[in-house]
């Protein structure tokens, strides 16, 4: 846990009423949802690619990835641009969140181990849970969530899917 955040600052954002925290060191930018180009032969949790200052940014549909019901974008919906490590390469990915709240200070001691029940987010994705005031904040391990083999191998598709394309 200590290696993950030198400072204790986390960007908090909301997804489906639940609060998530992302270490600020990994947040590069927060942008509005603009035109997103879908890419064929990619899993449903990839919304597509968008233009981030002349670079191509993959955008992940976080709700789908976390098996949450998908909703229409609202005025608060935005893309958090993250820096993640994929196979020793540092790349940028954007994740769609319902709302970005604030940068919060969370002391390591406030982060409690993740529970073993309720595997909605496939426990690996969460470092722990912080309780601040009355609210629980799920602290994400973005390297695990958004750079696991699932995405890398996503284009290994069955022949039916290729024909469908």
């Amino acid at each position, binding site marked *: 846990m200590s290696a993950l955040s030198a400072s204790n600052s986390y960007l908090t954002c909301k997804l489906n009423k639940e609060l998530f925290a992302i270490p600020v060191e990994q947040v590069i930018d927060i942008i509005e949802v603009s*035109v997103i*180009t879908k890419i064929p*032969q*990619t899993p449903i949790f990839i919304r597509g*690619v*968008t233009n981030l200052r002349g670079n191509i940014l993959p955008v992940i549909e976080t709700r789908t990835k976390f098996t949450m019901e998908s909703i229409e974008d609202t005025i608060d919906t935005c893309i958090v641009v993250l820096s993640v490590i994929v196979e020793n390469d540092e790349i940028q990915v954007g994740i769609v969140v319902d709302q970005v709240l604030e940068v919060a200070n969370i002391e390591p001691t406030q982060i409690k181990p993740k529970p073993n029940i309720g595997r909605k987010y496939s426990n690996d994705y969460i470092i722990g849970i912080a309780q601040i005031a009355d609210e629980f904040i799920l602290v994400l391990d973005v390297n695990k969530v958004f750079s696991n083999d699932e995405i890398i191998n996503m284009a290994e598709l069955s022949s039916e899917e*290729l*024909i469908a*394309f």
Partner: protein
Amino acid sequence: MIRFQQTKVGILIDYIIGEHQAVVKSLGTLFRKVQSISGATILGDGEIALILDVNKIITEYATLTNLKQEVFL
């Protein structure tokens, strides 16, 4: 749109928007296994256009449907 691969192959599309001189950009690590797209380019209005790897699409389709290369000859 007609594309050449020893013989002529037709590709059905919805409509043609135009012709562009494009700077090809890679889609990056995450999408490197997406076979049918060879890259992307950023258009004047900031939108991204994907570049189809037409040769690969035809070859893949031929392999999948067990069409032998001879069919194309």
